[in-house]
């Protein structure tokens, strides 16, 4: 494939045709701030935070997320003028944003907060009308508070472009524009699949997950990368752990089969891990009742009864049913137990169900 070379902040960058300036810069390790960008979505160019200067361009400022890198382009990403524009944009956004980072669910995981921090915006120069929408809690999973919305359209776009469902669109226009469901119907009365993709892409606290609310700030949780426990897609997920409990799940962007996308089960189906129904001790049936027992007792009983059956009826009087939900290693050991220890090929699992 042909390569193109361009100059970004004085560095010569080689990239493949079709890449945007943003992507080319990222390849060269140059970070350009963004707000409406999500690599899963088509470029949108609405927030104007990623504007860069391109030499020889009419107005001079182009959105890095939506502009293809071109041969011999000379790009600057961090000039005084650009910083000024970015600061103004952040100030404008904050002029219509509740200043409640203290209690906002997304504090620490908020792209607007990060931008305000990076550009040192404490208090916006501009004051004026602010939105006062009621927070919408019309289902047990997704809460929407459009006072925190920056109109990046990521929820609208991910639901349409990636999920192909299109629960949301913008309503109205200009200052009155707001994303939402048609006729403000509750999500439960739309085709919503509760995948939480809108939550995952929302750069602020406008759309948050209800089950994880108040359970832990981003810096208070440890993220453990693992594979989803549900269907066979094998999506990679990050379990958010705080105080020994899973408090949330997210999907690492552009990693694994899901590439950062997830479904309702993968994203919200973690509650069973800490459910009070979990078995916490071996149980042994005594006088018809299952009663708690020690491991020693339970394991001894299992080994004895298997050994007895083998001795009396032969190894094929024992059968093993493995699990499509246990790990490879466990299943390997399980069939090894059947074959090598007990001596039977009576081992199967629920693959067919």
């Amino acid at each position, binding site marked *: 494939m042909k390569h193109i070379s361009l100059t970004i902040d004085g560095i010569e960058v080689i990239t493949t045709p079709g890449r945007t300036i943003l992507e080319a810069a990222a390849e060269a390790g140059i970070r350009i701030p963004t707000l409406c960008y999500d690599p899963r979505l088509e470029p949108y160019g609405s927030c104007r935070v990623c504007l860069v200067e391109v030499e020889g361009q009419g107005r001079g400022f182009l959105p890095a997320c939506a502009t293809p890198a071109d041969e011999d382009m000379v790009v600057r990403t961090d000039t005084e003028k650009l910083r000024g524009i970015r600061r103004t944009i952040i100030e404008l956004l904050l002029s219509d944003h509740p200043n409640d980072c203290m209690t906002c669910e997304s504090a620490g995981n908020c792209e607007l907060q990060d931008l305000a921090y990076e550009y040192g915006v404490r208090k916006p120069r501009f004051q004026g009308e602010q939105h006062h929408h009621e927070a919408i809690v019309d289902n047990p999973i997704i809460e929407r508070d459009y006072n925190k919305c920056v109109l990046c359209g990521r929820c609208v776009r991910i639901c*349409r472009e990636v999920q192909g*469902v*299109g*629960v*949301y*669109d*913008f*309503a*109205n*226009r200009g200052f009155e524009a707001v994303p939402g*469901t*048609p*006729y403000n119907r509750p999500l439960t009365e*739309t*085709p919503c699949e509760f995948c939480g993709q809108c939550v995952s892409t929302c750069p602020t606290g406008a759309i948050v997950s209800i089950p994880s609310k108040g359970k832990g700030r981003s810096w208070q949780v440890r993220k453990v990368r693992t594979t989803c426990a549900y269907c066979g897609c094998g999506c990679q997920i990050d379990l958010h752990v705080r105080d020994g409990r899973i408090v949330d799940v997210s999907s690492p962007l552009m990693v694994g089969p899901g590439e950062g996308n997830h479904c309702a089960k993968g994203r919200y189906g973690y509650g069973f891990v800490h459910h009070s129904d979990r078995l916490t001790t071996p149980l042994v049936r005594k006088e018809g009742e299952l009663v708690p027992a020690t491991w020693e007792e339970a394991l001894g009983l299992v080994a004895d009864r298997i050994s007895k059956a083998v001795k009396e009826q032969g190894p094929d009087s024992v059968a093993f049913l493995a699990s499509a939900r246990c790990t490879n290693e466990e299943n390997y050991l399980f069939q090894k137990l059947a074959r090598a220890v007990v001596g039977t090929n009576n081992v199967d699992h629920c693959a067919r169900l």
Partner: protein
Amino acid sequence: MEKEGCSCNRSFVPPEDLSPLEDIVERYRGERGALISVFHEIQQTYGYLDEGIMGELAKKLGYQLSHLYGLATFYTQFRLKPIGKHLIRICHGTACHVRNVREVTEEAKRFLNIVPGETTEDMYFTLETVNCLGTCAIAPVLVVDGVYHGHMTPSKMKKLLEKMVKEGGREASGQD
């Protein structure tokens, strides 16, 4: 496409009757991107874009309802609520503005006791302001049920409304 753009005909079909909708959908079937025209026709037939009608339309055309709603709320021509028997649209273009159309609008507001975008309680008048009707030479201008009235003044506005009230046999909601 309808050749008559005029919306003087104000007898609307109730939204329960889906047969005109079916006709409209049939006429535009296979025409790419014709949604805005479809909306215009629905509005002309039903008077506004009723939620139930839009739901049916989404099903018939295979669109997400959200898309239709987003579209309908983007364009100022579309109404999501029923309008009155008479539609008064006052131009707020630049020419009308510099010729003090604001005072004409004030008179209409006063007389009808509603603000632009609203309909009188008895569903008789709907008042709207529009950006520019493109008849700037006769500014200030307004359109009542498709008929243009130029060089408007507050008193001409009042006379016009009084005449409409009288002809329609409606009790005036405004004073004097």
